[in-house]
């Protein structure tokens, strides 16, 4: 059985040697383009500030140094607090967000749902039109009290219309309605159908959305900038963003702030330090990817309806 499969695939997918070389080169080059910036960041994070000052960013710095990493570790509790915050917000946020996304998308997917059209439009509309920053801010901060707490980092990003549409489309293309009919004939209730039948066969879609959501939460600094003023709630990305913003702002306004700006700028973390923080931020999320990948590949090959 498996032998046949392999032979079949080989015949179908075989290409001529030159074509294979070209394709490999193209794809390899593309992969290199993707990975190079990150390698560059790692190299810069290990360059000495002196070298950056003299020759700028380079793949071959004049001098290597681990000073930036030492500084990060010496920075003390803030780094670890922020690390914890990022992990906490990403995990809790993703779980709740996924649940809402699946529930919403499933309802939109069911053709027998009466208000399907309205709710599809409802979610689609917010993709196109937003209320603007100031009203959003007012609602979140003053009505919902999302200020200086973890909820402020989680709730505003909880429902993402784009992910709901992805999820709904995924369900439409991969879950046959016969399956639901079969389940109900066998006496399965609505919740049972959703959680024991639909969700297990939708793992690829869910994993994709989960990955997107995790990245969304992990990379978010904007919510923290808007709603968080206490350092103990800062996520990791915001630490990084803040220092970058400070440097940019001081450079931009150095002529009005005057002499002081130069001094203030010098007190900010150096480039290699920022790059080392980038490494700290990227590594965990890069490690999370293979975990999701498992579902994406295995899920799709399993059929659910035979005949």
């Amino acid at each position, binding site marked *: 059985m498996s032998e046949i499969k392999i032979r079949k695939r080989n015949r179908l997918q075989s290409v001529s040697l030159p074509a294979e070389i070209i394709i490999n080169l193209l794809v390899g080059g593309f992969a290199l383009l*993707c990975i190079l*910036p*990150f390698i560059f*960041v790692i190299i810069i994070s290990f360059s000495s500030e002196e070298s950056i*000052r003299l020759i*700028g960013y380079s793949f071959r710095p004049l001098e290597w140094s681990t000073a930036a990493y030492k500084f*990060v570790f010496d*920075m*003390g509790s*803030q780094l670890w607090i922020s690390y914890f915050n990022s992990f906490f917000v990403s995990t809790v946020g993703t779980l709740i967000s996924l649940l809402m996304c699946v529930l919403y998308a499933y309802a939109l997917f069911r053709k027998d749902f009466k208000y399907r059209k309205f709710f599809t439009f409802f979610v689609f509309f917010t993709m196109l039109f937003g209320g603007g*920053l*100031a009203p959003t801010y007012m609602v979140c*901060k*003053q009505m919902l009290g999302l200020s200086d707490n973890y909820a402020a980092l989680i709730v505003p990003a909880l429902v993402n219309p784009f992910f709901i549409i992805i999820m709904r489309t995924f369900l439409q*293309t*991969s879950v046959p309605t016969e399956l639901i009919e079969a389940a109900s004939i066998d006496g399965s209730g609505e919740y049972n159908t959703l959680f024991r039948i639909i969700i297990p066969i939708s793992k*690829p879609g869910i994993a*994709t959305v989960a990955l*997107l959501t995790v990245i969304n939460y992990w*990379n978010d600094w904007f919510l923290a*900038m*808007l709603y968080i*003023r206490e350092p103990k709630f*800062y996520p990791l*990305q915001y*630490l*990084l*963003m*803040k*220092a*970058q*913003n*400070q440097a940019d*702002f001081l*450079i931009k306004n*150095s*002529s*009005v702030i*005057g*002499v002081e700006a*130069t*001094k*203030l700028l*010098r007190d*900010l*973390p150096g*480039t290699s*330090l*920022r790059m080392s*923080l980038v490494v700290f*931020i*990227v590594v965990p*999320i*890069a490690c999370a*990817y293979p975990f999701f*990948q498992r579902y*994406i*590949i295995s899920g*799709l*090959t399993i059929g659910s309806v035979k005949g």
Partner: protein
Amino acid sequence: MKKVLATILTCGLILGSLAGCGKGTGSTSASTPASTPASGSSSTVTNTDSKTPTDRPADHVTLKMYLEGSNVTDDTAVLQKVNEYLDEKLNVTLQPIWGTWGDFDQGAVLSLQGAEDVDIYFTCSWTLNEYNQFARDGYYVRLDNPDNNLIEKYGKDILNLLPEVLIKGSTIEGADGYGIYAVNGYKDIACQNCWDVNVDLLKKYGYTIEDIEKADYYSFGDILAKVKAGEGDNFYPLLIEGAVLERMVDNSIIVAGDSGSNNLLSYYINPKKTSDQGAYGNKILNKFATDEFMKFCKQTREYYLKGYIDPDMANPEKANTVRADKQLTGQYLIGTQSYSLGYEIQASKERGFEVAMVPTTPAYVDTTSSQGAMMAISTASKNPDRAMMFLNLLNTDPYLFTLLDYGVEGIHYNLNNIGEAVFTAERDNYMPWTNGLGNVTLLPPQEGQGADFWDTFKAYYGNADEIPILGFTFNSENVSNEFAALANVAAEYVLPLCTGAVDPTEKIPEFLTKLEKNGMQKVVDEANKQLSSFLASQGK
């Protein structure tokens, strides 16, 4: 098919996340603040009542104050003392919001637009909650409103302490008429551009500082040539910030309210006596069309071609950092620098060689510099009266101001035998931005500034001349479309022209045509119309 879709999706994801990483080169905010040299003050910090004994109001209120540029991680010790004191004086609890350079702009604007219950905001001419704009749009309380004159009622002491030019600079046309919408901070309020001279290097080639003082930009050539020849190809004797250099050489200044457009508009001051009218009178010009500008660009081009100017200075991405590094390491002969009192001493110490500042004009006060740091009361504040009382106390009471800015004596700083404040390591956890807090002359001087620092300071800044159009702010509302288009054009040409990276005889006409096409004349006319009505209202 699904597999392909999933693969594409995931590829997109990885790409997206990588791209995110590439960009997000920000860094931690946990910067190591270089401990500022502390200093002592001659005036002993006293805990006496301010001059007007305010009766302690009966009801207790909490005031929130949104500040800029802070670097504060632990304010418990300070706030405890501050609030003890404020409770006793005004029956007030203070809750500062320590905005930083990175988040203040966005945070304060949203907070204002969201009508949050923050009472006092830092504001000025260069942050996003720009003073003139937000006063016009009704976000700030008019403090000298005839119906409810807060300054008259609670803030008289401030007026006595601040130089008159400051009040003049902050009196503007706002939502409630022509008046004061914020309390000025008393900081380095005057502008003075200087040649920043590396004296050690100058002496090495047999020149003295007098040679620089006697010369001007157009006659630096010989000195530059000699130093360039002696120091080699990789040495660039002129270390310039393009736009600043142009202003120094041509005596043009920024027009307030124009910061969004790359400072297209220019007013020309009188380099001998800044309170008099300049060569063009009280007119705003398109400076790029003047003969001075052509002459300046040609000279700069010549210096550039001879290798006196680092090509990096024409690269907006690198110019600032490269310049800062070269200043620090002394790889320059003559630089451009906006001056603040005592900077040559500080710079000499920091850079490890003798630095001299040669001014090109006397110190002057213009609208931008007089609006450099202010405190406005929000119209959303529930207790504007109490906020004004607090601002009055903050700006007049040395004990309160020192406590809020330097921290607690014995914890964050100590006074040495001549009364200068010497900071401790604790100060790293509590560093508000001094100039953003208010009347800095109430502080003890920092170590090394000398006991009589503030006297010198007041003499220098208090006596600075005002330019004839002080208080004028351009309102770009009527020409906002032209403005945006012109800003793009200017971004393309100004820096290369002012650093000599391109040929002016070819590029200036091209530049001018583009400006003309995008409505430069309309903007200049509008500015002059506003200026003449402003001057008429001033009785000039």
